[in-house]
């Protein structure tokens, strides 16, 4: 094939975000194309399929204004690449990775394929360094570790953005290394994006944040590549520049909608609820880019946010995400109604990597037993709450009443904290013991006796 880039104007069909071009030669799969509209506007797209001389192309910025005559398509001969450099820190980019603040052009250190490469499983380092978010519901009960992918499952109208913002402000590791933040917006509103920007500005973190913004009024199809562009920047910073990065991806639901749109336009066989059958694989190609690698200093920790349609955890988006991510943090409408912030329901939440990231030398020796006991006591307290609804509080034994009381206090003192309250892990664990102080010592069956002796409050707090 010659290296001369050919331009074609033989567009056969335009359908939704897809255009089909005839008579092409030597086209590569996944190749980037440049579409020039009759009015001179240029748009970018990517080859989805090529069959002899027919290429199917998805156009990221949408196809409005595209004509079958007068529009031309140029094949660039390469796949999508992102110019990367350390200077990206503190900058704002659009969903395609082009700077949109008024800063200078990025002088690239190198160009990287946005699809990345799979990490060799035998080269991975098992994540186990504790990350302190300053939120007791996470640090104490569903601990996050460096290199983990832990999504926030939320619903419309719930304060997941506030939680994510607070986490980005407070996150640190106990060894003192600093976190860089990659913030990826997919289809969120200007207001929401602005909330995050302001948050970063106020906390003085702006110079260590890289923002990629595809907002609600930006082309939906562009969202397909926004997380890939952002993770490419993250991989560069983490694995070549030794940084520890926290990547916030919001909102994955919008990403999946875009995926469905493309799939429908291609007339693919739909899977559950019209989402494509390959959505699991596609999501994995994003989430699996989190992790630690042997012999590399940096790490990528992901915290994707997704709003569950109708709060339904069985909806394909949270369901498939849950199969890939290492746990989930669940934001509860019920707790939110009770005016508890952060309304994190610790019971169904889970951090799969927690057990290896806590304990002596990582957090504290008593952490595992303590969280186990808190889980158990809280579950029992909630059970009592349900029982009271049926039989009334008088029917409860004294011990049952203590559990009932425990659940209330646990929610309003342990879970609840102020939006600027940054609790250290010691504070969180001590608070946990204070909570357990409301229960008789004999009830603490899940904690090693030696820790009870050491930490159980000697005087009852009530």
């Amino acid at each position, binding site marked *: 094939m010659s290296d001369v880039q050919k331009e074609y104007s033989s567009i056969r069909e335009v359908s939704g975000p897809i255009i089909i071009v005839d008579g092409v030669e030597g086209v590569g799969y996944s190749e980037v194309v440049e579409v020039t509209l009759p009015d001179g506007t240029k748009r970018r797209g990517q080859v989805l399929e090529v069959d002899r001389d027919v290429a199917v192309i998805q156009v990221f910025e949408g196809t409005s204004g595209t004509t079958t005559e007068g529009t031309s398509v140029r094949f660039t001969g390469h796949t999508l690449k992102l110019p990367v450099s350390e200077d990206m820190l503190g900058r704002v980019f659009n969903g395609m990775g082009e700077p949109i603040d008024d800063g200078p052009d990025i002088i690239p250190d190198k160009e990287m394929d946005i699809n990345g490469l799979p990490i060799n499983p*035998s080269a991975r380092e098992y994540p186990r360094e504790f990350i302190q978010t300053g939120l007791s519901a996470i640090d104490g009960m569903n601990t996050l570790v460096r290199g983990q992918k832990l999504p926030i499952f939320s619903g419309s109208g719930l304060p997941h953005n506030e939680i994510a913002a607070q986490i980005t402000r407070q996150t640190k590791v106990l060894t003192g290394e600093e976190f860089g933040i990659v913030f990826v917006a997919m289809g969120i509103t200007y207001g929401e994006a602005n909330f995050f920007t302001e948050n970063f500005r106020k906390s003085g973190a702006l110079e260590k944040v890289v923002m990629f913004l595809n907002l609600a009024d930006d082309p939906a199809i562009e969202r397909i590549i926004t997380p890939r562009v952002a993770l490419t920047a993250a991989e560069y910073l983490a694995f070549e520049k030794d940084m520890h990065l926290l990547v916030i991806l919001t909102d994955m639901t919008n990403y999946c909608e875009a995926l469905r749109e493309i799939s429908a336009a291609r007339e693919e066989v739909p899977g559950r609820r019209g989402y494509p059958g390959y959505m699991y694989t596609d999501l994995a190609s994003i989430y699996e880019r989190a992790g630690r690698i042997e012999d590399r200093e940096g790490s990528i920790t992901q915290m994707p946010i997704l709003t569950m349609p109708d709060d339904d955890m069985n909806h394909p988006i949270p369901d498939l995400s849950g199969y890939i991510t290492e746990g989930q943090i669940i934001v509860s409408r019920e707790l939110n109604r009770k005016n508890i912030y952060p309304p994190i329901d610790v019971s169904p939440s889970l951090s799969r990597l927690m057990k290896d990231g806590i304990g002596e030398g990582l957090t504290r020796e008593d952490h595992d037993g303590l969280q186990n006991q808190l889980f158990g006591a809280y579950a029992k307290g909630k059970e009592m709450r349900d029982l009271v609804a049926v039989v009334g509080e008088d029917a409860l034994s004294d011990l049952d009443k203590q559990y009932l009381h425990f659940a209330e206090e646990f929610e309003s003192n342990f879970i609840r904290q102020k939006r600027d309250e940054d609790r250290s892990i010691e504070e969180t664990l001590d608070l946990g013991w204070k909570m357990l102080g409301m229960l008789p010592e004999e009830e603490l069956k899940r904690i090693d006796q030696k820790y009870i002796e050491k930490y159980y409050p000697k005087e009852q707090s009530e």
Partner: protein
Amino acid sequence: MSIYEGDGVIEGKIVKISGPVVVAEGMKGAKMYEVVKVGDTQLIGEIIGLEEDLATMQVYEETAGLKIGEKVIATGRPLSVKLGPGLIKNIYDGVQRPLRVMKDEQGSFILRGVSVKELPEKSWEFVPRVKAGAAVEPGMVLGTVKESEVVEHRILVPPNVSGELKDIVSKGTYDIEDDIATVKTADGDVGLKMYHAWPVREPRPYVKKHPSTIPLITGQRVLDTFFPIAKGGTAGIPGGFGTGKTVTQHQLAKWADAEIVVYVGCGERGNEMTQVLKEFPELLDPRTGKPITERTVLIANTSNMPVAAREASIYTGVTIAEYFRDMGYNVALMADSTSRWAEALREISGRLEEMPGEAGFPAYLASKLSGFYERSGRVDTLANDTGSLSIIGAVSPPGGDFSEPVTQNTLRVVKVFWALDKKLKDQRHFPSINWLTSYSLYLDEIEDWWKDNVSEKWKMRRDEAMSILQEENELQEIVQLIGPDALPERQRVTLLCAQMIREDFLQQNAFHDVDSFCSENKQVAMLKSILDFYDTALKLIDAGVSVAEIREMPTVQKIGRLKYVSEKELESYIKGLTDEMYDEYDRLARSYAG
């Protein structure tokens, strides 16, 4: 004649690319399931459809950048695995590329178009078992190699070679590529090395299948005692996310009394494989006292690795497993998760524009699944030995809904069903295997083994415990309506014992040093203690003792701690517990009699 080289000459040109599916023209003469090298970067692929001179291929590597007009070379060989020493302790991707070698050669990320030797290029100490002049039968053992601390690798004659042994090397150290024997066959002399290749989609031959009458002991109480799997049997383990599929599979890989374990991580998390790599070398096999890695082969094709290779990974794994079975070993294969494999099938099928069946899966899903599970079994091998291959497949049903096609089609072929339950998981009851919906069809077949080797009353006690749990389930419905106080005392004792069976027997802590593995003897002793207590408690009720007093008996606490008692202290602990129970019984019964 050589069995080690292909005769690939066919060369075609790419005409269509759609994700992992590529079509080439000019491929007349190419065979179905033949391996192809696709494009200038020589990506590995496999022919999955032929029409006139067009060949449709699935490519095991990322196809981005591949261009129309690039060439495709058919290698003349079906997709095969290399079977020989060096498999144990190795970790492979879905098409048997050693991941550690790839890491050493290319770094932390998986590059494309990589060609690496499947078996380590090293020398092995070969000890011949037969002499020149012997008749060579397919599958015969030529000699042995000490492959790891615990595995004696038997060098087999390929199942498609027979004749007369012209020569064989003497005992000594040979390179993996050295010829170790020459066989005079009807088609001329064939040189044999310590390894041979076998096509992954073709089950390896054996003489005869036997019924599965020996249990695969897993050290997991809910499995061994309640829903056992036999050596050579099949089990399906479906569950929504977070219910503990992977932990259960890992437990099986760690503790099952198989001589060889093949673990296939199919389309799952990368960190889970890392965990296996980190954890397994530190764990000792309770039977051999050696690290469990010494008997393990890992296949890792994680969710972000190419989807077509994920489809192949299951076959790569099962073929390696069959190979060890053919040496006369008991082999267990864990596949986590078969749903991801089915999804790979669906994705490829979609790209081929085939007519979709249920939930978009191809119509041949059922036959592919049963074809895979049918490769299990306890068999007489070609070498007149007995070997077995047990297959345990995890299933990841969307939304935890078992009515979906992969779960249903799996249940149609497997004989053991371990149903993971979200409710149990929420109560932190682990392993969260639901005792009311799970089943095993091996109970009767393996009863004699338990009778002969462990305990006469295994089945009887198991059935009694089951009926207590069944009764609890019925009683719970009443309790939820009117509260536990309304039940007669006898039934409240049943509830207490059901709770003990659940919490003190069925629940097992995979992360506790002692509790992680529970021997057959200990399982029997534990269940016996609970049931003896049940009998005692019922007698006490008849004597007029209240449930509240029975609940306070120290025996209840003692039974609760039984799971953490080590095998060494078990006997004396049980004795103490039993003595104390009967003393308590006497005291309570007397106080009411008087």
